[in-house]
């Protein structure tokens, strides 16, 4: 199977760079898979889990929003935060969700609040996915 080049960069580091078979990206308008020869796309990413497939190995990376760009040179993901599944501190993540919930309680209704609620929902869906994978 044809491979393509994939770069995952966050402001703090170059998290991943190499040839891969497929990447599943959590886009803001729905997840999409990228294979070699994908049409050029620029898409905004929602907080979610990004799956990198190389041969028979699957690597899962948690991204908290960002931007994906597919060009003829391959796929580049600019992630706001990128942590691999193993590195993630589940307790800290749960804490972050709690903090966000706390903040939302006092939030004033408006566009800003809607966005925060949406973000919280994404975070929660990551957590459910995490917990369900942990059980297997």
């Amino acid at each position, binding site marked *: 199977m044809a491979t393509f080049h994939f770069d995952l960069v966050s*402001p703090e580091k*170059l998290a991943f760079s190499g040839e891969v078979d497929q990447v599943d990206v959590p886009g803001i308008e729905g997840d999409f898979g990228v294979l070699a020869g994908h049409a*050029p*796309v*620029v898409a*905004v990413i929602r907080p979610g889990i990004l799956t990198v497939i190389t041969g028979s190995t699957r690597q899962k990376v948690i991204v908290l929003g960002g931007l994906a760009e597919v*060009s*003829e040179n391959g796929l580049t993901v*600019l992630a706001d935060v990128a942590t691999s599944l193993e590195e993630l501190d589940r307790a800290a993540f749960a804490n972050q969700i709690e903090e966000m919930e706390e903040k939302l309680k006092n939030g004033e209704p408006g566009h800003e609040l809607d966005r925060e609620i949406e973000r919280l929902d994404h975070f929660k869906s990551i957590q459910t996915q995490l917990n369900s994978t942990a059980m297997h």
Partner: protein
Amino acid sequence: MASLKDMRVRIASTKATQKITKAMQMVAASKLRRAQSAAEAARPYAEKMDSVISNIASAATGSPGGSPLLVGTGKDQVHLLLVCTGERGLSGAFNSAIVRLAREKAYALMNQGKDVKFFCVGRKGYEQLRRTFDKQIIGNVELRSVRQLGFVNAEDVAKKVLALFDAGEFDVCTLFYSRFQSVISQVPTAQQVIPLEVSSPAANATAAKTSYEYEPEEDEILSGLLPRNLAVQIFRALLENNASFYGAQMTAMDNATRNAGEMIRKQTLIYNRTRQAMITKELIEIISGAEAV
């Protein structure tokens, strides 16, 4: 004239100072390595961000009603100088060089009849600018308690700047920081961030041919991306600054150590001369006393 004991004390204290500067030099050297790799790690992100923005922006230009972050507010009356400096001194001319560049720019703008406002990141710059431009400083962020510079710090600053921009406090924003060129050379740099100067390189001529699909629409992506880009630019400036700071400190402390060594040499020479002069004087006294008997 100082007694021998005073001189001994003075030499000892110079030696103690030399030990401190030597230690600071070594600490700066090891921190420099870390700061440098952090600055390098951030580079790919900033570069990618740049190319994506210039791609989208070149496609979006021409359409009216673009984001003011990209096209500006239509005037350039009020300038905001975002001055990033270090938190600590003892680093040679590092902080002063940045402040001097900002000050020159401020005077040049004021001579053209523009209004100038300042936003300081870092304590040293704030202290220096406060003397001359106290009333014009509209914001100040200190990163003193921050151990490891993270993206959140830059985001904080960006949020404050954007809030000021949305409130119509300024039209043009220029970022001042020190670019890390090498350990011995740091270049104070001014970079305009609002409105964004889109680099439209020749490479774009070919790249622009690729027609991207956008998900969601261009404007929506752009409006999310531009504030983020500001944070990225600030983050990069802070990291470059950090590396430059340690580079400058290392050089400054190396000089200080060498000067202290020179001083110790001179003081020891005077000390020995005085000691010998005293011995000679005592000998003469003894001999002339013996002759008189």
